[in-house]
């Protein structure tokens, strides 16, 4: 029996009212757990959450369905056309599934496609895949420093970081050369008082 975990509604309601358009919206019929009747709902998909209202334009959603760890399957049914089910195969036993019906074939297919690719886990896997492709295409290097720098600087994101190790090596070699030259000149008794210690030319 679940305890009384508090889902802070401010966090959720704010998201449900975001100015950006939802990922998908439309009318769906949701089968009631109690009465088994299908009830018309206005649905909006945002991220990994499916919000539903009684009517489009109502302020507060009636509820939300978490789309994480779920499967979305078409239901073949002569009596209940255009239906699909959101279920949680890894969930605890007795976990409810959500039976939904769309208004036509196209709407059903669109919703099933959108809902089955809505999870955070799916997006994360996709993102990792694309990140890999991006690097493989010869873009930014993979050092954490570059990653972090790129996040803060659009310039770095655009052109990358200089090769600090290489530069350090290069400067080191030049300093050794200059120092050797300076010692030579001193040993030879040359007047260096007027000149710069470091030849900046």
């Amino acid at each position, binding site marked *: 029996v679940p305890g009384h975990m*508090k889902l802070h509604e401010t966090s959720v309601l704010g998201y449900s009212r975001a100015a950006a358009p939802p990922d998908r919206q439309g009318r769906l019929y949701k089968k009631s757990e109690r009465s088994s009747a299908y009830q018309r709902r206005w649905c909006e998909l945002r991220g990994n*959450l499916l919000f539903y209202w009684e009517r489009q334009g109502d302020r507060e959603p009636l509820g939300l369905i978490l789309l994480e760890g779920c499967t979305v399957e078409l239901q073949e049914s002569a009596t209940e056309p255009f239906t699909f089910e959101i279920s949680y195969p890894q969930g605890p036993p007795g976990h409810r599934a959500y039976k939904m019906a769309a208004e036509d074939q196209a709407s059903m297919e669109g919703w099933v496609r959108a809902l089955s690719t809505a999870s955070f886990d799916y997006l994360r896997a996709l993102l990792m895949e*694309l*990140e890999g492709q991006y690097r493989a295409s010869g873009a930014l290097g993979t050092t954490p420093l570059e990653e972090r720098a790129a996040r803060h600087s659009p310039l770095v994101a655009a052109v990358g970081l200089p090769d600090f190790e290489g530069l350090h090596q290069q400067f080191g070699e030049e300093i050794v050369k200059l120092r050797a030259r300076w010692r030579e000149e001193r040993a030879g008794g040359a007047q260096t008082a007027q000149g710069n210690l470091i030849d900046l030319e």
Partner: protein
Amino acid sequence: MRYSERELLSLSRQPAEKAAEILMRAPKKGSVLKKRLVKLVVNFLFYFRTDEAEPIGALLLEHCKINKEEENVFSISFIEEPDRKYSFECDTEAQCQEWIEALRRASYEFMRRSLIFYRNEIQKMTGKDPLEQYGISEEARFQLGTRKL
């Protein structure tokens, strides 16, 4: 607003991106710092009493700001109520920075923007849409231009 507590509980039991015992304070006036097990799973932050298996609360990490406060402390506030802050006091500044970084990247919206960025860049570099092979090129959620980057 109805939601399935079972679904959330199930989520809270999944492997966490990050978890630690942190002192936490709710935005309510007169609230005190309490030690909680704080667990980040996808875009939810669950928090537990340290000796309990079920979370006492969950925050959805969307439309929120993660703010650096004083030393070792960060806060989470939601755009609709910027003055109500959930405060977290870490053991060290390093831990604090790690959490800030992790939480900022924990939103669906952040990941979506990153994905759209990479999709666009890969398309520019290779001439091919990397999402085509997954059959999701037309999904509204992955389109450039429908949301601010």
